[in-house]
């Protein structure tokens, strides 16, 4: 599992590095979506996370959720067209999960992509994500995640 500047990026996920979003294959044509530990660390203390509701259609580049910290607003944008089939209500009452469990309880939505095969071609598989993430951190002048990130 790559650990880049202290930030964990699990192997089994697919990444949209530019948008700092991860995808997990669930089977049955569904994928789970969240934002990376790096994104959460860059945002500072997240005070609200609001996923969009199940049933919504998303175009490529649309937000599936919005993160808010005291001074920051950030959308979690999807890379491909899809329908939201589940939405994580729990994270709305526990936004800190984005910091403590970014690849588990902090999932945002489950999507049914229109064409997951084509969508996957847009993403970076976990074993190859370290190098592009290092570059992203360098460009953002981001030192890295603190212990436990």
């Amino acid at each position, binding site marked *: 599992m790559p650990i880049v500047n202290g930030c964990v990026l699990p192997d089994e996920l697919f990444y949209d590095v530019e948008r700092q979003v991860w995808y997990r294959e669930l089977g049955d044509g569904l994928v789970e979506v969240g934002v990376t530990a790096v994104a959460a660390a860059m945002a500072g203390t997240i005070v609200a996370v*609001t996923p*969009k509701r199940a049933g919504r259609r998303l175009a490529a580049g*649309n*937000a599936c959720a*919005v993160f*808010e910290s005291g*001074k*920051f*607003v*950030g*959308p979690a944008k999807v890379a491909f067209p899809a329908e939201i089939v589940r939405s994580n209500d729990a994270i709305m009452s526990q936004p800190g999960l984005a910091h403590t469990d970014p690849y588990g309880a902090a999932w945002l939505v489950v999507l049914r992509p229109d064409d997951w095969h084509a969508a996957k071609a847009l993403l970076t598989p976990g074993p190859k994500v370290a190098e592009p993430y290092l570059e992203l951190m360098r460009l953002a002048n981001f030192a890295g995640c603190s212990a436990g990130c």
Partner: protein
Amino acid sequence: MPRKLLIVIANTDPRNHEELGSPFFQAAVAAAMDFTVEVICTAAAGRLMKCGVAETLTVKPGSDKSVYDFIKDAHGLGAQFYACAGNLELFDMDAKDLIPECAGVVGTAYLIDRVMSDEYRVLSY
């Protein structure tokens, strides 16, 4: 459900700094949610569209984030900002004095048209 939000900032006085965060933060959030967002600054708030004004103001004393930073965040997420035509003279401004994030000057009829439209929801401050 309407997909467009108009935020009218009219009664938010730049002299009351703590009033300046919410309108711009809400504009940023709505834009991040993929809604079309327009913000019209008029009356006392019209000054916020003038170069050099918002960057001297902070919502919280001592904060390192200026009101202009809030405007830039919302603009960066897609919110469109406008100044009110009738408002410019009040502050001895013309179009060349506007901040780069301000898309231009609109008349009161532009505002009223959107307020009355079924396509928009309106928040006013």
